[in-house]
């Protein structure tokens, strides 16, 4: 296990970077709002960034083994439940439950 100073420093570094990214743009707000290009990016980035983050989460899928079926089934359930009920917590719980159930039993390693 990593030592305590390193663990604390990792949190402090991450917190500083994250807060900076959340707070500093407000200082440049006037100029940002004036730019049409930024406006174009701003309206489209959230959808794309979320898609990229989903791919990132699934980057290490074991595509050559049957264990890949657990996250794929869970993903299908998440999307299906969300399109059906449009209830975010329910979709997250359902998808995670499927992944935990399959990965811990049928596809346990």
């Amino acid at each position: 296990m990593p030592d305590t100073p390193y663990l604390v420093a990792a949190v402090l570094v991450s917190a500083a970077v994250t807060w900076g990214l959340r707070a500093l743009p407000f200082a440049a707000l006037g100029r940002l709002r004036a730019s049409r290009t930024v406006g174009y990016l701003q309206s489209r980035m959230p959808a794309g960034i979320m898609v990229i983050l989903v791919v990132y989460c699934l980057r290490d899928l074991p595509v050559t083994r049957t264990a890949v079926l657990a996250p794929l089934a869970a993903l299908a359930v998440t999307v299906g439940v969300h399109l059906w009920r449009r209830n975010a917590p329910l979709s997250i719980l359902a998808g995670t439950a499927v992944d935990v159930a399959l990965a811990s039993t049928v596809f346990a390693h």
Partner: protein
Amino acid sequence: MHISPPVGRDASPSMAVPPSRSPSEARAALRDSASVGLGFVPLGVAFGVLVAHSGIDWWWATLSSALVYGGSFEFLLIGLVTAAVPLASIAVSAFLVNVRHVFYALSFPLDRVRGRLGRAYGTFALCDEAYALTAGERARAWSGRRILWLQLFMHLYWAGGATAGALLGSLVPDRVQGLDFALTALFTVLALEAVRDRRGDLPTPVLALLGALAARLLFPGSLLLAAFALFTAGLLARHLTTKDNPRHA
């Protein structure tokens, strides 16, 4: 349209808001935060359990959830610290994962939040879900105080869930796998909602998906950076070509 807040009961702008006003604002914020809480608490618990299963002490889950307060990055951070990655790499990763927050300044109603401390906390706790709830149509009439209460409740759900998960983590057997899928599921849901908000703008998610897959194949070591760069370049190229093309006018 700017809707001015109702001029109420006591008008003493220079004075601090009397505490008697807080409970109703807090109650309203508690109601607004309920749906996010249903997602944050289990996700926080999943985070805490993962921390415990990674062999890290429970207090680290509390520290990270309270100070970093960026759910997606915190899940990644577990893997980074267990691999003892250098601090500079952690800083770069935090930047890459959280750089999307830069765009939240465009529509988060910070102008309604009063006071240096309030504004500091408002930006500190500006997570995706806080942005999603407060930048919408429904929040148009919310006061700064109500927004801060809402952010505080969400912060508490996350930190509370993480702490509980880390403390109880040892009770969850090691062979329970797959809890980290909660993060994939959260992003999937946020992606579906964001794509739905774009109404028919399919090229945007397709561009992002292509960028991410290309990054996965070509730059597996720096997937996020490569994917964001390819996606942004694609958007800019599309912006330039549509500007030159009067079809859309």
